[in-house]
């Protein structure tokens, strides 16, 4: 190791130092945790800014364990943004739940470090430890409200399924190592290409796919998702629905494009089948939900289905990486709209901690009660549906057209049909907010906390800006794959 090796991991070093600082400062704080919130937020912003500043550099570090390139930087910035928005929506919620502790922010920072490592890794071992760092932090965040049965249940379910998923992924990795004697993506990929596709490679591909499928909640490995999202503290659920998912996709894209290049016909078919199943399960179950938090959990499964269709297309299209670019773009768009939607839930929960149960009925009359929250929720719902003018529309447009380009027009048609179905449960929230009278009149509310308002506003700005001026993010997504085959 030389000091040069440290340059690619500066964003992560900032986050690790800040997380340790949070842990050290925590015992000195009494009730007011502003200092720790500020440390976490500053670190995430600094990490994002530094990552942007490193743009244009191409460097492998730590004996090719991780790399610094446009692809890694794209995700580092995305994860920093997701983390920062989550941190901003957390303080008031945690105060309301009576468990506002600095450790929360430290765990969040560690999770972001793990995600960064997953996106930047070029070695199966580095990828795996990054995955575990993210996962262990996530289990703890899910169970952060330790006196609430649902939070305990969420942590337990997340931990058990996560542990199984890790074991299955590891088994696939061990098969690959046994066949090639290497763990570096490029070396393994080249070695497997030389020996050709075989049943063993197919089995390893399937095992890694299933393990990662658990992590990003691909049907039929999605069972834990609604329970975990419902039980976890709402800001944490917001983070789960975007952060670990995007990290899972960042690693899957790289692993399947490089390590399993030889078995791309196999995994492409697997992804297409799973995409259809996931879109069906996510949308069908979201339709029946009366609880908005659970509905958003199932809808996040549906969005994973759309992304899987993109992965299936990627396996078909050879050296044309447009599907990969559209996946990156979709992840960016999805991050803002879903964080925003969960942010509104967190806001409403802090307003009426006792009476607000996330059910649809609780949204009745919101348009009159707090018009701003209702309008923003409406925007996020429109975006999740894919209405023109929002980030969701552009994301779906690019994603589905890349699927069409890979000669999978029928799959794109299925995806569009499922999106149309999704309009029902997204727009139903809007109907309740503006056209239904509440059964009980709610007491007047206290003012929204500054950081939460900022988080919601930034999410909304993200949704609108990406929706109207997609070129900026699209350029970043395209340059991420710039010299992939070069």
């Amino acid at each position, binding site marked *: *190791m030389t000091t040069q090796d440290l340059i690619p*991991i500066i964003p992560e070093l900032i986050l*690790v130092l800040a997380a340790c600082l949070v*842990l050290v400062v925590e015992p000195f704080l009494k009730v007011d945790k502003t200092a720790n919130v500020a440390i976490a937020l500053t670190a995430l912003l600094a990490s994002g800014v530094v990552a942007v500043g490193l743009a244009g550099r191409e460097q492998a*570090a*730590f*004996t090719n*364990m*991780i790399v610094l390139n446009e692809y890694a930087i794209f995700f580092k910035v995305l994860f920093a943004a997701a983390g920062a928005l989550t941190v901003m929506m957390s303080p008031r919620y945690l105060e309301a739940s009576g468990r506002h*502790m600095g*450790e929360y922010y*430290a*765990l969040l920072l*560690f999770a972001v*470090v*793990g995600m960064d*490592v997953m996106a930047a890794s070029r*070695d199966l*071992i*580095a990828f*795996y*430890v*990054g995955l*575990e*760092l993210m996962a*262990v*932090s996530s*289990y*703890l965040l899910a*169970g*952060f409200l*330790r006196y609430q049965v649902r939070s305990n249940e969420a942590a337990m379910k997340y931990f058990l399924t996560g542990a199984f998923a890790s074991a299955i992924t590891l088994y696939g990795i061990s*098969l690959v*190592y*046994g*066949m*090639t*004697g*290497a763990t570096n993506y490029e070396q393994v990929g080249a*070695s497997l290409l030389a*020996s050709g596709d*075989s*049943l*063993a490679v197919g*089995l390893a591909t399937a095992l890694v796919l299933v393990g990662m499928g658990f992590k990003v909640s691909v049907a039929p490995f999605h069972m834990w998702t609604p329970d975990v999202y419902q039980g976890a503290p709402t800001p944490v659920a917001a983070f789960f629905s975007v952060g670990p998912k995007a990290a899972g996709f960042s690693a899957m894209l790289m692993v399947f494009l490089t390590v399993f290049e030889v078995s791309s016909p196999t995994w492409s078919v697997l992804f297409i089948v799973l995409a259809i199943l996931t879109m069906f399960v996510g949308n069908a179950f979201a339709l029946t939900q009366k609880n908005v938090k659970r509905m958003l959990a199932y809808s996040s499964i549906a969005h994973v289905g759309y992304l899987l269709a993109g992965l299936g297309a990627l396996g078909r299209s050879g050296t044309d990486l447009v599907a990969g670019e559209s996946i990156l773009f979709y992840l960016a768009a999805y991050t803002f709209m879903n964080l925003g939607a969960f942010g509104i839930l967190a806001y409403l929960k802090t307003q009426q901690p006792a009476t607000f149960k996330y059910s649809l009925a609780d949204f009745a009359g919101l348009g009159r009660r707090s018009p701003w929250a209702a309008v923003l929720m409406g925007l996020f719902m429109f975006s999740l549906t894919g209405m023109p003018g929002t980030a969701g529309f552009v994301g779906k447009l690019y994603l589905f057209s890349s699927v069409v380009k890979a000669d999978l027009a029928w799959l794109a048609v299925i995806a569009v049909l499922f999106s149309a179905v999704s309009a029902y449960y997204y727009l139903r929230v809007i109907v309740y907010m503006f056209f239904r009278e509440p059964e009980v009149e709610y007491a007047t509310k206290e003012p929204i906390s500054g950081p939460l308002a900022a988080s919601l506003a930034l999410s909304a700005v993200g949704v609108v800006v990406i929706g109207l001026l997609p070129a900026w993010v699209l350029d970043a997504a395209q340059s991420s794959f710039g010299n992939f085959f070069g």
Partner: protein
Amino acid sequence: MAEKLLFIVFAAFAVAGALGVITRSNVVHGLILLVFTFINVAGIFLLTQAHFLAVIQILVYAGAILVLFAFVVMFLNLREFQQEEQFHRGQKWAVVVLAPVMLAEIVFVVTAVTWSSVGDGFTPEAIAAQGGNVMVLGEQLFTKMLLPFEIASLILLVGMVGAILLAAKEDGESVCLREWDDDDCVSASLVEREV
């Protein structure tokens, strides 16, 4: 020849022990069989010249992790636990069908593949020439594997923070021995005074 014989003995014991672990309904019996399995796996490591791994296997798995299991078992109410169904009746058929399929697939793959057993040139001879297992492993860990090693230390830190977060007793918190029975709830301060 002797090596082959030893391998068959170790492997047979390991598999038999593992089968025992999942078939015993008494958790303590399962635990003891698990130690037995770990020790036999350590024996297999010894046969492949991986002496350091064999020692680690016994220290970490047969030692530390088993102690952890023993603690958990002691915390649980075993008598009630034993009477419970160990798995869903409705899912039995799936086990009967899927497990043999998976096993056949793995056996087929393992026998069909040409394994590249000497990745990075780590043959037993080469390792011995470089100064033995500990030396080579240590060098790899702190050079090539430095980054994963450091990240693993972060995972341990997170685990430690999490353990405190989930288990540490807070001021004024009441300790419920049985959640459903309010009479068993005593305040934390009371417990400490009694001790």
